[in-house]
């Protein structure tokens, strides 16, 4: 079990770096969703089911949607 926690910790570091290194906001949305998923798996491995449920719903559904809608609104302001 220690290898699972270690692997998920390294994956979380990689996912966080992926969010920062995606400079285009439209690509960054998918990186944010992947970060939420990896963090949720890490929290499950660390025996925290409540936290994992919360992070799953927020990090993969709510936050990327808000980013997407704001990008659409900004783009429509520019062009329209």
């Amino acid at each position, binding site marked *: 079990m220690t290898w699972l926690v270690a692997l998920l910790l390294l994956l979380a570091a990689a996912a966080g770096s992926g969010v920062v290194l995606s400079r285009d906001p439209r690509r960054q949305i998918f990186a944010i969703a992947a970060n939420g998923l990896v963090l949720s798996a890490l929290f499950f491995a660390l025996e925290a*089911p*409540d936290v994992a*449920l*919360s992070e799953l*719903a*927020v990090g993969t*559904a*709510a936050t990327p*949607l*808000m980013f997407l*809608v*704001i990008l*659409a*609104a900004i*783009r*429509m302001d520019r*062009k*329209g």
Partner: protein
Amino acid sequence: MSTRLRLALFAVAQLCLLPAIWKIARALPPFGNPIEIYGRSIDTLGPPLRHISNMVSAVNFDFRGLDTVGEEFMLLCAVTGAVTLLRGIRGEDRGAKAERLPGRPLLDRAESTILVARVFAPLILLFGLYMVLHATVTPGGGFQGGVIIASGLLLVYLGEGYDAWRCLAPSRVFDAMEGGGSLLFLLCGLGPMAAGGVFMENLLPLGSIKDVFSGGLIVIENASVAIAVIGGFAMLFLEFMEETRAAETENER
């Protein structure tokens, strides 16, 4: 401050931070062997004291309930701020048409999307309700279940389209839920004071362990947090989506 100067300052700050990080990482207790006196005492004493088997809910709503009051009002303030910012410029009316970029086609919603959304939205709303109700027995609680229900409302939007979604999910109901949930949570704290106890003292009958209605005041606090979180997130989604609608005064479409 130019870009190069800012990057140089950042590099200097990082170099000063790295030895401190290493020293602190060595000084913390090793991972997996924590010093958890408070946590262990809650794990052993919590179930007989409050007749509840989900210790995280017990800490959230009973042992550290004052912190959750603060978090709840932080949520209220953030949602109020975002809604005020967006509505202050745009007004409170509903836009009738979606805003379109010139030159991009307006596609109908795919039938498969509508089918999947209509099948799964009630299931997810029911699952969220199950999460909220089982706060005291299994992993769950007001915060988790509230976000799941708010995400289920997004599936309703995908299945029904914008106009039907705004009719099904009226804005005034979520306004009332947001404020009413926070008020109910505060009354759960002030009510025991009026009855002669201390702030948020658990004066209600405690029930039996492994029962859904156990824990006394925790049940009411959990429901109030769920109502407030649902109202808050739904308000945010509604206001954000409304930003992508065309303004009423433009008449070139």
